[in-house]
Every structure is written in C-alpha cells, then in structure tokens.
C-alpha cells in the first residue's frame, strides 16, 4: 500500500461551514452519503463498481437511469488531487501540476468565487486497481485514455471511496484572491486536533 497525501478544494459558504468538516468530525463525505443522509455496508458494496468509477471520471453529470438525478449527486467516490511535479514527467509533458493549483480551481468553483477552502488529507492507494475495496483509493490515470500526454501524465487525481475519515484530515486552509494583485493569499488555516498521522501505519521498527 502507498500512503498518499492529497488535497481537496471545496467551494463553501464561509469559515463556519469549513470548520464543521473538522469540528463536526464528519470528514470528507461522498455526495451520495451527503444526499441520502445514511448509508449501509450492503449499499456501499453495491455502489463500488467499475461502472460507477467510470461514470464518476467520465460521465459525472450525466443523468443516472436509476435515480433520475445526475450521477454526481449520488456518486460514492470523492475526487482528491495529489499533483504531479516529477522532473522526468515534466520533460515529457512540460507541465507541473501541484495539487494546490487543481484544488484552488475546484475550490473557487472554477474561478467564479474569490475564496477556496483546501483540505489536506491522506489516503491509502493500492498497488493495483481494486474499485470494490472500500479501504483503498484509486489512481484515476488508468480509467481513461484521452488525457494530455496520456503516456506520462498522471494528473495526480485520486478517487477516494465513500468517506475520508475526519482523523485522516490534517487541516484546512482558506485561500483568497488578493484584490490588488490578483494573486492567491493563504488567509488562515485550522489544524484538526484529532488527526492521526499516517506514520502510524509505518512498518519501520525503531531501535530501542
């Protein structure tokens, strides 16, 4: 397993709503959970399918024939970004995508809002594709073929499943566009006091 640090950019009403994700111990929930209020283990099994992963990545806003609502409203997946900044990839693609850039684009509602809330969390990524396994996230690069420089470009998108528990969320940061310069400024952050560092999972035993 790989421990992958990720960011999630959210367009929220205000700091209170941003706080609730940490203070309320909710964690980052999939739209499906948020829309139905309660999910069961059996429902989770039914939702975590290759077909739904493909829908999330390639048909996010298409109408779901079962629910008659856009698939996005009932997706069991959560898109996270891990960025791609490797030099080797850069020489092939000429692109660096730090996770922050992607998180800010989504968090500003694609440039429509001046403020974005960016959450830092970690998740486990499996070495192989395993959509039906709830506890590991998926790397999106294997799920479609059209991406720019597809041979090399990972885009750094990670699909978490159903929930990123609140103790895996380290903090959130508030980013605002500065009126005078137009640049992004980090205007505050809040760290989660219940955060569990991923080093808990390390299999390195220290000397006594």
């Amino acid at each position, binding site marked *: 397993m790989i421990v992958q640090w990720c960011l999630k950019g959210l367009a929220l009403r205000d700091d209170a709503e941003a706080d609730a994700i940490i203070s309320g111990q909710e964690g980052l929930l999939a739209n499906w959970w948020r829309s139905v209020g309660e999910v069961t283990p059996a429902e989770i099994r039914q939702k975590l399918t290759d077909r739904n992963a493909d829908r999330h990545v390639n048909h996010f*806003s298409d109408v779901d024939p079962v629910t008659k609502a856009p698939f996005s409203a009932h997706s069991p997946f959560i898109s996270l970004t891990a960025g791609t900044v490797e030099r080797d990839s850069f020489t*092939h693609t000429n692109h*660096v995508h730090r996770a922050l850039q992607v998180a800010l*684009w989504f968090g500003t509602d694609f*440039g429509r809002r001046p403020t974005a809330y960016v959450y830092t969390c970690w998740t486990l990524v499996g070495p192989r594709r395993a959509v039906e396994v709830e506890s590991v996230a998926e790397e999106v690069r294997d799920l479609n073929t059209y991406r*720019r*420089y597809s041979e090399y470009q990972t885009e750094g998108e990670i699909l978490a499943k159903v929930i990123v528990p609140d103790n895996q969320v380290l903090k959130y940061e508030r980013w605002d566009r500065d009126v005078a*310069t*137009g*640049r992004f400024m980090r205007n505050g952050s809040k760290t989660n006091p219940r955060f569990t560092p991923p080093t808990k999972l390390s299999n390195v035993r220290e000397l006594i």
Partner: protein
Amino acid sequence: MAVQHLGPMFLGLALEQVQRRVEFLRAYADTSLAELESLSTSDRGVTGEAQWTLLAEAASATAEAAQLVAIYDIPEALSLFTAAGTRFIELGEPYGLFLRALAGVTDSVDVGFVGRMLRTSNLLAPFDEPDVVRLSPPQQTYLVLGAAGSAVLRNELSSQLSTLVERSENRRGVAPFGAVGTPLWRTWAIAAELERAGAHRGASTALVGHLVAMSIAYEERMRSAMVNTYLWSNLASPVHLADIEILGITALAATTFSSQTLAQEIGRQTEQLTGLASVPMSLGLELAAHLESGALL
C-alpha cells in the same frame, strides 16, 4: 475572429469561462513567482528543488493560459507564449525555444541556447552508447522544431541542424510526443520539412499531411473529454483546447512557407475534417498571419 472556435460546432464553450480560466492561471503563475521571490530573498535557505518547482509551475500555467488566450486574443497570446517560453528556457527546457519560435521572438539569446544544447547534449550519440547525458527525446524534438521553424536559427545553425534532422535516431522513434501522442518519427519528419524550408516542391503538402493526422487525433481526444460535461464546461478537463503542438507547428510552417501558401494547402487537405479538428490549425494560421501583418507595418 478566433473566438468563433468556441461555438457549438467547435469547442462548445462559454467565452466567460475560458476567460475565468485564463485569469486563474495567470494569477496562479504570479502567485508561484511571488513565492519564488520570497524564498530567494529569505534567510531560510532555498533548495534547488523548491525553486525549480515554483518556476516550472509558473511556466506551465503561463503556457496553458497562452493557448487559451489564442482563442480570443492573438496579440495577448503571443505575449504569454513569449513569457512562458522564456521561463522554460530558464529551466533549461527546449520547449521554451519552441514557444518563443512560434511567438516569432527568437534572437541571439536563443541561438546561444541551441548552440549550447547541440554542443553539450550528445544528440547524435548512438542510443546504446553508455554514460551519455542527453536531452529526453521530447525535448530534443522541441529543440529541433523550434530551431528549424525559426529563420534566425535556421540561418545561424544550418549545418548542425541539417545533420541533426538527417541523422538523429529520433527519425525512427515511435514514442508519443505532445498532447495528442504523435509518434516521434512524424514530428521529426515535420522538422525535416521545416529545416529544408521549402527547398523541394511538395514540402508544404507533406507537412500539412502530418498536421492533418495530428488534428484527427486531437479531435478524438477532445470528443472523449467532452463526454464529461461537468469537467469540460468548467475547463477542468486535462486536455489542451488549442493544442500547443499543432498550433505551434502550423504557425512555424506558415511563417516558413508563408501564411497564404500554408492556408491554401490546409484548405486543400482538410475538406474532410470537422470544424473541431481544424481548431488548432486555424489558430496557428491566425497567429502567423498576425505576425506577418506586424512585420509588414
């Protein structure tokens, strides 16, 4: 007017959203540069890696903005391609030369850059020669495209360039290059046509044939990306709407053969192409026409 390419028969996007994306990318590039400056002036010490990442971020965000701006404001796109190109050159990446060449701003500094690259990068060393440090094949390709597509560089480095396009192993390369995964052999065939600068009849015909093949691949990528309407309409799809390679090669070819010659050849060969497939080539022609009209003033 380039903005027609946003219409429903083409990219099917709202101009306002394209402009929002451009503003965002420019703001993000500025943010990275400001962070780079603050790191450089602080006493905390800067690792080379941190500087590299911030400059690379600014360069790639500026290039991405440039290809979007080309859809509605060619002069501004030229300015952004130039800025991005200069940043990539600072990073030592020949992609910057390609961007500066398509923007028509190559000068003695670029001649020096290419000369250094040709001297130090062992571009003609056999693939199986051990311990040879060389540029990655894609960066070699940007180097040769930028140099062969620029009159200044073609004149200054003609013998080295012709040796390179005639002997490089990349002429037979099959690895994917650029946003639509063009095989290397095709891009090196394009470079050879540019390097000969129309010395033989049919050079522009052959070159446009390659551009048409790339444009068909471009359309396939765009149509696949369009399926996710959420990402597409919000400009969050991981694709290049104006495809810098097709746009850039078209612009370089148009300035090499003349816009009129290339436009006629494109018109002759693209009757079967859809409007969407033709978007990057059309933008490249518009960009070259703008450069030509500026040169006439």
